[in-house]
């Protein structure tokens, strides 16, 4: 096979009793950007991690430059010129950028003593190559998510990576950082570095990828040239059926005022004012760090409110704890489902019922039948797919994990629900389910606030879109007048709406 840089064949992997990969294969040519697509749980990330040596395959053969290769650990992969940028970046937050790059790096010979000057000299060209302008002494924790990602790429390059695996690299980036990343990927390709790009996002794949390999249920179902393939065909390959991605009609039943926010100020927010109606979906747009999550935290009693007023159903709200906010009918689905949302070693049932145990008990004793009964209803509504309610949530795909978290909040029947980037890193089918649920909530007279980094998603779901920049509201658009350009301008430019 000409130009084949890397080949994996017949890769099997089981986690516990669950088969993640069953005879998956992947073939990457030198100097191409190769997309790895598939639904939740199709095995994309697992395959990427196996290729990078982070996970060991049960079975499978690998070839690099046509030669058989063994990949059993990250150093093995490094020696073969394979690098990975994990979705959850694996940096050491308290070590400096330079230390992060040289640690475990076989290309930098470390003696028993830390040699800071050599370290920095080693790192600088790679940091420049990826366009990261920070000091090499900066601790990783003080970098933005986008910068951390660049640092991870610089690290992989400094390890002489010829094959770079990127696992959902744009899942936490806003559009401008995505553009920079794409520029960088094109630059790498022109230098002969191959990139395997794991993503759900169809538009990104058509923009930067040369070829696409689609996984379904742990098996490779096909590899296509991106240029001669339509998105419909890829979706068919991924799910085995057609999906309607166009935005459906959104009946808007705008009811009474559900929540009034006046001059709200916290440690980050400044003079935030808006009104939220029952039956309305309000989008919250803004760059990372603009105060989107902080708005939810303030309303939900996690961040102290310094100034201003919040009225809920006509009465003042000053929630000092999530418990109080929940009692007043506010729910919050946090941004990071793994660290802020789910109990990863508890079952689907236990996770879902956690916020509503109050009504699933009698004298402190749990009523299992009631718990299961209520979960059954909401699971059907969410189209939650899991082997059983007793399955540990860590065994579920990202989309189903998110649905478990949503189930927890739906069971609480909140009047106002704040969804912080609920579709981050989940596949198209699960996204559709979540859009449908948002619509159903609004139709049932609930007020929904939806944070998202993806503008098309906001335009698809929201009746109005509020834009934050540096903790201030810079614009509120009605759905009819909102465009991606306008929102971007309000999110980035100070003078646009001064």
């Amino acid at each position, binding site marked *: 096979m000409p130009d084949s840089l890397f080949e994996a064949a017949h890769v099997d992997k089981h986690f516990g009793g669950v088969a993640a990969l069953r005879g998956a294969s992947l073939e990457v040519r030198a100097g191409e950007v190769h997309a790895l697509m598939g639904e939740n749980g199709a095995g994309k990330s697992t395959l990427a991690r196996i290729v990078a040596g982070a996970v060991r395959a049960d079975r499978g053969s690998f070839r690099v430059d046509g030669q058989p290769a063994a990949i059993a650990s990250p150093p093995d992969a490094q020696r073969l010129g394979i690098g990975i940028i994990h979705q959850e970046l694996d940096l050491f937050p308290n070590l400096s950028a330079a230390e992060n790059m040289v640690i475990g790096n076989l290309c930098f010979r470390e003696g028993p003593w830390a040699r800071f000057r050599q370290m920095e000299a080693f790192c600088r060209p790679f940091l420049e190559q990826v366009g990261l302008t920070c000091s090499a002494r900066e601790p990783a924790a003080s970098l933005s998510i986008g910068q951390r990602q660049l640092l991870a790429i610089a690290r992989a390059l400094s390890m002489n990576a010829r094959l770079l695996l990127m696992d959902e690299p744009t899942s936490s980036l806003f559009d401008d950082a995505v553009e920079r990343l794409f520029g960088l990927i094109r630059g790498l390709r022109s230098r002969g570095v191959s990139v395997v790009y794991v993503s759900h996002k169809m538009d990104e794949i058509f923009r930067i990828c040369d070829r696409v390999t689609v996984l379904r249920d742990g098996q490779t179902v096909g590899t296509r040239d991106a240029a001669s393939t339509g998105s419909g065909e890829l979706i068919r390959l991924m799910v085995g059926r057609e999906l309607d991605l166009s935005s459906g009609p959104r009946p808007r039943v705008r009811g009474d005022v559900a929540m009034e926010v006046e001059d709200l100020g916290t440690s980050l927010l400044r003079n935030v004012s808006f009104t939220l109606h029952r039956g309305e979906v309000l989008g919250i747009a803004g760059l990372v760090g603009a105060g989107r999550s902080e708005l939810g935290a303030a309303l939900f009693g996690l961040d102290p409110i310094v100034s201003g007023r919040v009225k809920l159903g006509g009465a003042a709200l000053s929630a000092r704890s999530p418990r109080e906010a929940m009692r007043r009918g506010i729910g919050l689905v946090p941004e990071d489902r793994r660290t802020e949302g789910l109990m990863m070693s508890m079952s689907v049932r236990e996770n879902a019922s956690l916020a509503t145990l109050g009504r699933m008990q009698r004298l402190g004793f749990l009523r299992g039948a009631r718990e299961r009964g209520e979960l059954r209803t909401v699971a059907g509504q969410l189209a939650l797919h899991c082997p059983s309610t007793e399955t540990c949530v*860590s065994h579920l795909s990202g989309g189903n994990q998110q649905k478990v978290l949503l189930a927890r909040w739906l069971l609480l029947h909140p009047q106002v629900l704040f969804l912080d980037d609920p579709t981050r890193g989940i596949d198209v089918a699960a996204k559709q389910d979540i859009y449908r649920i948002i619509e159903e909530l609004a139709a049932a007279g609930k007020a929904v606030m939806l944070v998202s980094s993806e503008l098309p998603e906001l335009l698809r779901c929201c009746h109005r879109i509020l834009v934050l920049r540096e903790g201030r509201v810079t614009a509120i658009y009605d759905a009819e007048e909102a465009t991606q350009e306008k929102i971007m301008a309000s999110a980035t430019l100070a003078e646009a709406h001064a």
Partner: protein
Amino acid sequence: MARDPEVGQAVHACPLSCLGSAPWFSVGGLAGEHRLGHADGGARLMRPILRRAQSLAALLAILLLAAITSPVASDGSRIFLEIGNLTDILRQISLIGMISLAMTFVILTGGIDLSVGSTLALSTALTAMGLTRLWPTASYGSHIALAIAMAVALSTLAGALNGVAIATLRVQPFIVTLASMIGLRGLAKWLTDNENIDIGFGRDVAARFAELFREKAIVIGAFAGAAAGFWILLDRTVFGRHVRAIGDNEKAAEYTGLPIRRTKVWVYSLTGLLAGIAGVLYAAENHQGNPNAGVAYELDAIAAVVIGGTRLSGGKGSISGTIVGTLIMGVLTNMLRLNNVDSNVEMMIKAVIIVLAVAVQRETNR
């Protein structure tokens, strides 16, 4: 850690309920996920059972070993298997066992309690003081009740203070309970002027107390009752669910509005309570209130909990595991002592067993 199958879950997830709830859950499911769910269904149902059986198997293996190596009495019977010996084992593990039950809850929340040995010493000293120095005019019954109530109440209070410091000052449990381990030991010694307060063998109230509360039935019964209570508490109550949820992911627990502080104060109060009860029984058993009692009990308790499969970082674990862990340690001690193994060698063997037990569990949990 990313893929850590449901160890502690085994206890809580009844395999039959999995079967019952499977069909409706796949409604509208994608073909692939559907298949994944069913192909390995049998294996998945079996695994929790096998995993439970495994710690039981370790216990059975040690029991078998103890029976085989047991010295033989003059009438040809194996001393280890005599009812008297077996109930002796249960009596011997009861105090550590009770403390281990409460320690399981502490560890499930992601905490640790180093102060239980000192709390036991305080309780022992208070019991003896109450019986010999206070309330000289009270009747026997109320005198004994008062002494026990004082010891247990103050021990529980000590635990509650640990909990309050951990929950409100947000100092790590290790530090807080290390401090109270030192402080409570000091308190116990100060109260007793560094002396053992002897409980006599005569006909006074203290002697009657000791006679009653060193009965095997009472001691073992207290452990069995506590074990049943804590089992139910962990598996069947909202409190138990909160304990595991907080240890699994405290931040998520906060975001879900769980009563984190209240739960923690209760958990450490329960440790104080059980260490206090253990202290009362210790006083009866040893006929004295010894302010130097219970040294290193916290470590024995932690060892039993960990051998029982509870994850030291919290969130995963079970009372049944802790009971098995306690039994393993008890049978092992008994076996070694029956064979006249030097007590120092006994400690070395236990050290190896602790590491092996946890390593084997990690291995099979992959």
